[in-house]
């Protein structure tokens, strides 16, 4: 009896420690409104009706630095079909992000979130993380981390979303 109670308590503690809820495929993407470099703001709701790729990155994260030029090529490849790439920078020190961006010029939308509220509402599990959001505002695919080799599935998901197919 007593052991059962302790087991229950342990389970409750374990659940509590890991209870940050992550956004899963099929769920509505949480809203965010964040500033660009020029001070204007970008809200995810403005992009409703378009296929949006939301990427979370920081300049201190090696795989993120590799993934951004890759996202830039994705944007230029699928821009005509209506893909919008939004890269949310999570650097606590803005100058570090700007130093990286001046060394690696990018055409994608960059918005800044030093506090990390957007990462909290998405329940981010890894850096970098990419979320593909369909025209209906629902998450269609999610990619944790970045390896150039396994981006084929993700690109397939992008093409399906642009074609308006329902997710499998």
């Amino acid at each position: 009896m007593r052991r059962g109670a302790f087991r229950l308590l342990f389970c409750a503690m374990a659940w509590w420690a890991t209870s940050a809820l992550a956004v899963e495929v099929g769920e509505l993407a949480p809203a965010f409104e964040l500033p660009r470099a020029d001070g204007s703001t970008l809200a995810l709701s403005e992009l409703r009706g378009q296929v949006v790729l939301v990427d979370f990155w920081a300049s201190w994260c090696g795989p993120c630095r590799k993934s951004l030029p890759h996202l830039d090529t994705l944007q230029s490849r699928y821009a005509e079909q209506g893909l919008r790439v939004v890269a949310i920078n999570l650097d606590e020190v803005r100058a570090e992000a700007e130093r990286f961006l001046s060394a690696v010029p990018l055409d994608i939308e960059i918005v800044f979130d030093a506090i990390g509220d957007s990462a909290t509402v998405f329940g981010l599990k890894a850096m970098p993380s990419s979320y593909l959001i369909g025209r209906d505002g629902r998450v269609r695919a999610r990619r944790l981390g970045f390896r150039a080799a396994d981006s084929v599935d993700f690109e397939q998901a992008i093409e399906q979303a642009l074609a308006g197919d329902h997710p499998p």
Partner: protein
Amino acid sequence: MKHARRIAVIGLALALSACAATLVQPWQKRALAMPAMRLDGNRLHAHYQYQLYASREAASGGDTVGRGGCGCN
């Protein structure tokens, strides 16, 4: 007495679980990603040191593929 002990144990468990709940989130790892946080300091120096250790102490293998022990590879 028995009751007080039980309360103390549950209180301790709750206090410990409070520590467990302060997770460092993936986007908060800037400081952890700094070169100064490496356990071995400098990668090149660590490699050099391991090379010496492996060849002089005949301690090759275990962590990576086995080597000859001559310090030449």
